């Protein structure tokens, strides 16, 4: 007894370990304030192992030290919220005892170094976050950003990332239901790879990652531990530079086959009732999983790293604690259940190895071959990292950019503008990408990628689930607050277009270096925008992820707060596709066009001008539109509904006519815009990106009913034209002129834009 006390006071520094010097502390990304707090907490100098533990748990990635106070302002409650932020994934209540668990996670830095493995392991991590809640993953989404495709390096990154995302999710057997891809200079050298997973569970089967029960056993389940990705968490918390290149952690290699076994074994363990808690060994591996589980349970843990199965001989406690080897789980269970757990794991050809236990003294204690190498008060370790709220100040250029106007002289003709926009990778079809993802496995895909939100059905239930992920980063760059609102509003419109009701969001906040005032301004303002929109829509934030330091010598990313949203279709049979379905159907514009071109794709892609004041997001109008769409869909009045976003009315109308990704031909259409928004310049009328607008089509016989329904929701509805037979042209009748395009030409521009650049 006195023995352990003595040991706790002075964990042993193993020989061969470096001495604790200011340089070493700095290499661990800990500043003086943080180091002093560590010494004060311990009442002594930390051992090398302890320093490693703190560097992981107090990294930006694990501690959220620059974002906590801001994230606290998100709305996180609501009648459907079963689990809000703080767990591996958020959980919302669905009908008939079902619940949905979902989360988005970034893997930007690893993907910049090794696109294939970086993206693949990103998908692996988000899958584990979801199935450790007891949910079976049923849908994947991904949000990607790269530099322009005319640079070979960016093409290399995109093809590697897409193959990585695809190979991993395809192997597990989870359909990809949607995503987004964007291109801009700032992403050269700083690609963004955000992966989102959606899982289904019976609400009663929900399990939380909370270590409980003094004397319970900790087991390592799954892959062996290697030297992969040591310091990954702190690596992800600094700018990419020559220095970070040198300190680059060993690449983590994904093994989707083992992940699939881990998925089946974990769900079987959870339903078996043999385990108390289960957590992914993700960023900062064993360290963060064990420390966070203990802190959540308010208990201590004791681990002997020598018991952890390793891939290589002679690994130190430090390496074993910080390894980010993939496909590993930490499980807490009653000692009496260990045999049963080992049996289930053996069935799935996995090992389950006891490595420690839950203790009553609140200490985070690590031994190596019985020798104590770390003894840290558990809760302070996880919770006492200094929190920073740095200065937030908008840069002068940002203000100036909003005031600027383009030199209109350079504008192409309206006739040329549409095909040029459809050929821009930012707006073009992403088929080249999602065709590499299995979109139909599980045979539940009701609406695949290629439209607005994806929709899946639930065998045995009548409801459906709509999922999407969206962010127009250009708008956020120009006006972080409105841009944050716009990201939520677009996601909600995508959901609503299918006929579903938006339920809640998860967010992935990709920004630059938060210690720079203009970056932190973008961050706080974007979050304020997201919060206000989520309040207005009653779509709580159930979790998410922050990725700072997306900067490199080549530049900094646009502020990119991607919003992942799930929605509920009460009757999945009523889902609405986004493309025209039948000739002679009427075409409607729901919503109002104000003609605000600020931040538009038209200016960015065709005038090479990123600037102006983006449209103000009218949250009332958005909400009215969402409710109208749900009502119209359930009344069966809609044949198609497509969100109007990048490219404005012209591109959205064209997309609806172009047809789905695998159709042989779309439809023609004639659209009369003369009385839609009188007095606007034609380019503003066609290409402005005002929100709260969708393009609808429906049977002429329902027009009157649809109009009165729109009126009852206060949604302006304009009957602007008709769907024509396949092979017919797309025609816009405008004040003073008429424009026509052959659909074949538009389809070539739209569908070949990305393949043409990639092959």
């Amino acid at each position, binding site marked *: 007894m006195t023995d352990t006390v003595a040991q706790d006071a002075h964990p042993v520094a193993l020989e061969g370990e470096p001495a604790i010097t200011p340089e070493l502390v700095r290499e661990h990304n800990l500043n003086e304030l943080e180091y002093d707090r560590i010494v004060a907490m311990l009442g002594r100098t930390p051992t090398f192992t302890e320093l490693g533990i703190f560097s992981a748990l107090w990294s930006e990635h694990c501690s959220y030290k620059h974002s906590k106070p801001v994230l606290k302002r998100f709305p996180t409650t609501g009648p459907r919220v079963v689990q809000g932020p703080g767990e591996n994934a958020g959980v919302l209540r669905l009908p008939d005892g079902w619940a949905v668990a979902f989360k988005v996670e970034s893997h930007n830095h690893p993907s910049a170094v090794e696109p294939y493995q970086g993206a693949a392991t990103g998908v692996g991590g988000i899958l584990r976050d979801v199935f450790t809640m007891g949910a079976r993953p049923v849908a994947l989404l991904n949000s990607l950003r790269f530099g322009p495709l005319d640079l070979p390096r960016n093409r290399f990154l995109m093809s590697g990332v897409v193959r990585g995302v695809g190979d991993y999710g395809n192997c597990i057997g989870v359909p990809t239901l949607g995503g987004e891809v964007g291109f801009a200079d700032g992403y050269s050298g700083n690609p963004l790879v955000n992966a989102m997973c959606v899982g289904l569970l019976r609400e009663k089967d929900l399990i939380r990652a909370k270590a409980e029960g003094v004397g319970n056993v900790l087991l390592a389940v799954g892959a062996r531990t290697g030297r992969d990705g040591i310091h990954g968490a702190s690596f992800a918390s600094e700018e990419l530079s020559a220095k970070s290149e040198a300190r680059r952690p060993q690449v983590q290699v994904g093994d989707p086959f083992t992940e699939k076994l881990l998925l089946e074994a974990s769900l079987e363990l959870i339903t078996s009732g043999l385990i108390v808690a289960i957590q992914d060994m993700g960023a900062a591996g064993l360290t963060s999983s064990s420390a966070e589980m203990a802190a959540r349970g308010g208990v201590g843990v004791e681990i002997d790293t020598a018991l952890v199965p390793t891939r290589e001989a002679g690994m130190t406690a430090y390496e074993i604690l910080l390894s980010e080897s993939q496909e590993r789980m930490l499980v807490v269970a009653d000692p009496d259940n260990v045999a049963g757990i080992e049996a289930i794991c053996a069935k799935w050809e996995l090992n389950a190895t006891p490595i420690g236990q839950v203790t009553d003294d609140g200490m985070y204690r690590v031994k190596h071959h019985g020798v104590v190498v770390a003894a840290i008060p558990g809760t302070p370790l996880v919770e006492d990292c200094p929190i920073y709220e740095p200065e937030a100040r908008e840069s002068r250029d940002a203000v100036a950019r909003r005031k600027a106007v383009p030199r209109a002289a350079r504008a192409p003709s309206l006739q040329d503008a549409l095909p040029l926009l459809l050929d821009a990778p930012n707006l073009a079809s992403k088929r080249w990408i999602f065709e590499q993802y299995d979109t139909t*496995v599980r*045979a539940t895909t009701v609406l695949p990628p290629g439209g607005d939100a994806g929709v899946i059905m639930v065998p045995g239930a009548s409801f459906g689930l709509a999922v999407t992920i969206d962010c127009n980063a250009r708008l956020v760059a120009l006006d972080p607050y409105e841009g944050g609102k716009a990201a939520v509003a677009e996601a909600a419109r995508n959901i609503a277009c299918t006929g579903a009701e938006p339920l809640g969001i998860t967010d992935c906040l990709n920004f630059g270096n938060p210690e720079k005032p203009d970056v932190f301004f973008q961050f706080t303002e974007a979050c304020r925008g997201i919060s206000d929109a989520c309040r207005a829509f009653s779509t709580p934030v159930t979790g998410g992820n922050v990725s700072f330091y997306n900067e490199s010598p080549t530049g900094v990313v646009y502020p990119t707060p991607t919003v992942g949203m799930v929605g509920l279709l009460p009757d999945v049979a009523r889902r609405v596709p986004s493309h025209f379905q039948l000739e002679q159907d009427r075409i409607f514009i729901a919503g109002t066009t104000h003609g605000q071109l600020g931040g538009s794709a038209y200016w960015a892609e065709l005038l090479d001008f990123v600037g102006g004041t983006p449209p103000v997001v009218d949250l009332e109008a958005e909400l009215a539109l969402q409710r109208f769409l749900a009502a119209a869909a359930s009344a069966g009045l809609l044949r198609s509904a497509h969100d109007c976003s990048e490219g404005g009315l012209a591109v959205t109308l064209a997309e609806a006519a172009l047809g789905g990704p695998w159709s042989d031909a779309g439809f023609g259409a004639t659209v009369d815009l003369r009385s839609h928004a009188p007095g606007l310049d034609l380019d503003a009328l066609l290409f402005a990106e005002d929100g709260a607008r969708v393009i609808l089509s429906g049977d002429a016989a329902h027009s009157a009913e649809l109009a009165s329904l729109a009126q009852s929701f206060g949604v302006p509805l304009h009957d602007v034209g008709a769907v024509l037979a396949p092979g017919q042209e797309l025609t816009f009748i405008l004040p003073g002129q008429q424009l026509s395009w052959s659909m074949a030409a538009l389809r070539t521009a739209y569908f070949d834009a990305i393949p043409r650049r990639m092959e």
Partner: protein
Amino acid sequence: MLSIGVLRFPGINCEEETLRAAERVGAEAHYVWHRDTSLGGADVVVIPGGFSYGDYLRAGAIARFSPVMAAVRDHAAAGGPVLGICNGFQILCEAHLLPGALMRNHRLRYVSRPVRCIVEQTGTAFTSAYVHGQAIELPIAHGDGRYVADTDTLRMLEAEGRVVLRYASDADNPNGAMSNIAGIMNAGGTVVGIMPHPERATDPLVGSTDGAGFFISIADWYALRQPVSPTS
């Protein structure tokens, strides 16, 4: 009652929907674990899609050695119907229950999309519900679907009418398969392997029911081989 056994290898991931599709035609359907040595009384065996053993080394190369495959061999030898879908097709080729092999797609990319196919052989337990030459659209999702075989084998397959399913045209061929072959059968017509996924096209909600015929055929096959009982 018709009993359908759906094999379950580590890494397989289409077993749930395959089981559902089998049940939809009124069959009793059950999983058969890869370590089992019996098929649990299955009249028909379906090897579903996925990534058995991660498709490491070669798709199907490792699953082929699982204990259950001995039982599948005996079942096939006794004339019992076996359907391999996607990875199941690859396993059947690796196990030499079907000739040829499935190699990396010619564009070196995984491809997931609907493809047009022609049913060219309706004399099997899995395709009798279609009419000869019928065009159907089925989802595919694979990285190793390029069917290859030596010229003699190809000639034999064509001569004996053993090409069960063919991509409708060169343009519809998603993987560079020789002779646009999407599915074949063994000499007896009892063992069939196809790359497309009929189990993903058996419900109007998911866009198509063109695949339902594969499972309806199984039910028809069973009904015909059963003496009609006087009570019914």
